[in-house]
Structures are given as structure tokens and as C-alpha cells.
């Protein structure tokens, strides 16, 4: 592109401006959400206060009172963290084995794992409700939410880790074996330092997916284990009466994740394309 853009001075100025304008348009709804969260509910629906108003923190201060925000937030943190942890505990050994000791079935197993992602969740909605409510008695528990979040993300976790592990040169490990390094030493001194970055970004991305999950967390909970998705879904404000407070609680629900997301843009590509685009 460099050679091309040097040719036209006009394009050098014009296209960046277009890019900036489009980026601002894309960000505008998020800006508007944050902006509205500082208005009172009454001001938020009045056109005369569209841009000029007295900012207030009232919506954030009353979040607990209005929505019981922290209970849902704590549930989201607990379920997303443990689901991520368990997915890694199951996924790391599996991906390790597939990357370093592939058999002739490895490709098929990986493809099959991916295919479980294509099963439409709605198709098994009732069996899941039936099993967990009438049979196992774990409906609306943290355990269930953690289990389901872990399972739906496991294929992505294994795929991502697999692509990272595959990039670690096997020669290093073979060489260390020649030098008489023990298995534990191999893991501690060679594998962990080399794989750490991949595991960390997989964890980050999995956490984001868990946090934003909006089907099972809504359908398999009522009050006890309900997450932020359920909170927002239950307060959708059809009459637009509570724009201010709804914006505040929404901002609080997505804010931390957007910031986390900025840190793992690159990994996002790899994670979501199952390593097909790097």
C-alpha cells in the first residue's frame, strides 16, 4: 500500500479522515450508552437535554437498590472464571496431546469437536431443562452454569490451544529429552514458558465469551445463579422509562469486558477462526 499511497497526496488526507469518521460512527452507540448513564431518568427522554444536562452519578449509586447489580455481577464473575478455569484444565492436556503426539485420528477428533459447536442450542433446550430440573436438581445453580459455559467453550479452547502448541518447535523438546531432562523439568522449564502466552490469551478470550453468553445463562437460571445477561434481558424497559438507570447498569455490565477485549484483539482472530487465520 505504501507505494500506492505515496502517489496521491489527496488520498493520504482523505481516506484517514473517512476511517476516523466511520470509527466514530461505530463507537457512537457505546458512547451514547455511557453518556446517557449520567443523565437522570427524566432528563434522558427529553430532547432539550440531548447534549446539555447536569451530569449525575445517581444512576451508578443506586445500581444496587434498583437492580441488585452486584449479586448478578458476582455471579457473572464466579461462573465465567470457573468455567474458564475448568475449560483450561480439561483443554490444556487434550490440546497438548493432540499437538505433540498426533495420531491419525487427531484431525477427525478436532473436526468433530468443532461440529459440536454447530449444534443449535435451542434444539436441546427442553432436555436440558428437564434433566437439570427434574432429574439432577441442579437447575439455577452456579455449578450448572459453570458446567454449561465450560462445555460450550471447550471446542474453541482446544482449537486455540492446539494452534498455539503446534507452533512450539518439537525439536526443542526432543533436544531436552536427549539432555536427560525429566518430564516434569520439561514441562516446567520448556513448555510453560513457551506456551504461557497462548494459554493466557485463550483464557482471556474464553472469559469474554462466558461473560457475554446469553442463551443458557438466561434459560437455565431464575434467581440464584442468574448472570448479568439475565439481569439486562429481564429489564429491557419497553416503555423507555428508565433510560438513565438502564444505561448505567448496562455500562457497568459491558465496561470491564470491552477493556479486556481491547487487550486481546489479535487473539480474537485466532480464537474465533479456530486458528485458520493468523
Amino acid at each position, binding site marked *: *500500500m*505504501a*507505494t*500506492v499511497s505515496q502517489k496521491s497526496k489527496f488520498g493520504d488526507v482523505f*481516506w*484517514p479522515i473517512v*476511517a476516523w469518521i466511520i*470509527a466514530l460512527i*461505530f*463507537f457512537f*452507540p*457505546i458512547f*451514547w*450508552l455511557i453518556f446517557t448513564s449520567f443523565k437522570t431518568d427524566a432528563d434522558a427522554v427529553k*430532547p432539550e437535554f440531548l447534549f446539555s444536562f447536569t451530569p449525575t452519578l445517581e444512576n451508578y449509586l443506586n445500581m444496587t437498590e434498583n437492580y441488585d447489580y452486584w449479586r448478578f455481577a458476582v455471579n457473572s464473575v464466579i461462573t465465567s472464571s470457573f468455567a474458564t478455569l475448568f475449560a483450561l484444565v*480439561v483443554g490444556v*492436556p*487434550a490440546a497438548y*496431546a493432540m499437538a*505433540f*503426539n498426533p*495420531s491419525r485420528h487427531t*484431525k477427525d*477428533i478436532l473436526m468433530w469437536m468443532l*461440529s459440536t459447536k*454447530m*449444534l*443449535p442450542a*435451542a*434444539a436441546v*433446550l*427442553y*432436555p*436440558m431443562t428437564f434433566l437439570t430440573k427434574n432429574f439432577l436438581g441442579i437447575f439455577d445453580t452456579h455449578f450448572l452454569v459453570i458446567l454449561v459455559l465450560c*462445555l460450550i467453550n*471447550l471446542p474453541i479452547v*482446544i482449537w486455540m490451544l492446539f494452534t498455539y502448541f503446534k507452533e512450539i518447535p518439537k525439536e526443542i523438546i526432543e533436544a531436552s529429552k536427549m539432555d536427560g531432562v525429566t518430564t516434569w523439568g520439561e514441562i516446567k522449564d520448556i513448555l510453560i514458558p513457551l506456551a504461557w502466552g497462548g494459554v493466557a490469551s485463550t483464557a482471556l478470550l474464553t472469559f469474554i465469551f462466558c*461473560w*457475554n453468553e*446469553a442463551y443458557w445463562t*438466561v434459560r437455565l437460571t431464575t434467581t440464584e445463579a442468574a448472570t*448479568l*445477561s439475565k439481569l439486562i*434481558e429481564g*429489564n*429491557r424497559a419497553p416503555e423507555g422509562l428508565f*433510560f438513565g438507570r438502564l444505561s448505567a447498569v448496562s455500562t457497568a455490565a459491558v465496561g470491564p*469486558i*470491552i477493556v*479486556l*477485549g*481491547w487487550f486481546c*484483539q489479535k487473539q480474537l*482472530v485466532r480464537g*474465533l*477462526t479456530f*486458528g*485458520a*487465520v*493468523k
Partner: protein
Amino acid sequence: MSKRTLPRLLQTPAVILLLLWMLVPLSMTLYFSFIRYVLNSLRKPEWTTPALSNWRGFGNYEYVLYNAKDFWFAVQNSVFIVSSILILTVILGLALAMLVNRSFPGRGIVRVLLISPFFIMPAVNAVLWINMILDPVLGLNGIAVSGINEIVAGLKNFPVIGAFFSMWPEIVPMSFRATQTSAYAVIIMVTWQWTPFAVLIFMTSLQSEDESQKEAAILDGANAWSRFRNLTVPHLARPIAIVVMIQSIFHLSLYAEIEIVSRGNGNKNLPYLIGEFTSNNIGAASATGIFAVILANIVAIFLLRMVGKNMMD
């Protein structure tokens, strides 16, 4: 322990967990789809517990196909929503990726701003768009339209141009809560959320494009369009296929947005229809579920053929 045992052992938990997760609920759905099973029935209380004696054969499937008026509408709508989103995100994603794929001041910030919508949780996305932006009275949509109307009304009092503006009709803001328009609302909000994903992938792929090839083409006198047509497009074919595949997987099971935007107004896709059936008619819900699985599989097989082969490289 032989050389093969340990790797196998390490994979076993993951394989077993996913196998259970896939087989148990799905075989239950399959079973329920062949029996009469409702949650509440005064007339036939025996239908409220799942049992083989309530066998209905393909009755539920026939009911869904021929008698449930919403089924074909839901299929059509699913396909309409998914394909609209796909077309829009791919076109917008390509355009934006090309735009950002050059260095200019503040490029890092532009990237961060562009990618942000992707991390919004679906529930917040839907609530934000349908209430604060698209609402015909209280949202920016309504406010903007009434602002325009006021300006036009003011201009009508001016001499000369007033005559021109007095011919203008008052604009009515579009409501996004009707059956068809709420599908548009869903398309708008999901496109907004997923365009960043397409941009990211296309950008990553553009960066790996062979620059020397391009420069050679310039020396050969190829113009910008033919460079784009003959070098960039073939290079982007694979990422486009991947964007299409992954989005299809996610959007065929779109739920939260439909639930929030269209509850009760008749707009529905397959997952939403299944949810409606689940409130009473489990047999029909399960048969619809099997149809959804079949639809997803057709799409998946088709798409995996396209991209799957070289995914492992």
C-alpha cells in the same frame, strides 16, 4: 505405559465430556419428537409425562410442517436475517479493512474504536439499540425525525423558499417494533456488532498479502481496480469463507436479540419458535429442534466443504 497410552488418556476427559454434551440432550430431543408430550393437558393428563405409550411416529413433524403456521415463517426469517447480516458484514468489513490497512495518525485508536462493539453482550446490544437509538419517540431515531420536522416547519414561514418547503410532508419516524421492521432492527444491531469481527479478520489477512507481487503489478502498469480484482480478491477468498462460516454458526442460533426486540410481535426465527413451543408442546418443540439441527448441518457441511480442508494447515 506404552507410548500411545498417555496422549490418549490426556484427551479422554475432553472427548467424553463433549460426547455426553452432544449425545444425551440430543437423543432426548429425538425421543421427545416422536411422542405426544405436553406440559399441561386437562383432557389428556397421560400426555404430560414422557412415555413410549404416547408414541406418535412422525406426527409431531407433520404437525410442525403442515399445521403450525409459524414454522415456515420462522425458517424464512432465520434465513433472511442470517443472509442479510452476512452480506452486510462482509461488504462493510472488506471496505473498512481496506480503509484501515494503511498507516495514518491515530490508526491504533481507530482500530480500538472499531472493534469495541464486538465485546458488547447481546442483551445490552439489543436494549441499547431498540430503546435508546431506534425508538420512534424517545430514541435518537424519533428525536432526529422530529428535529427535521421542526426545521421544515420553521422554513415554511420564510418568503420564496417557504412555498417550496410547504410542499414537504411531515416525516413519520420508522417504528422498529412491528413484525417485519423488528427483523430489520435485529439485522442492524447484529451487523453493528459483527462487522468489527469481519474487519479484524480481513485486516489480519490483508497484512499477510504479498507486497512484492503488488509492486510487480504496479510496474507492469496494472491499475488499482485490476490489482484489487486479480490479487486482493483471490487472497481474501478464504477469510471471506471463514467469516461466513463462523457467523452462520452464531447467527442461526440468534436468540437474545429476537427475545428483547420482538417479544410478542410475531417476528421469530427457529430458536425463538422452539422457545415458544417449549412453554407447552414439547413434542412440537423437539420436532422443530430436529429441523433446526438439520438446517444447521446442511449449512455446516456446505461451509466446511468450502473451508474445512485447509483449516488444519
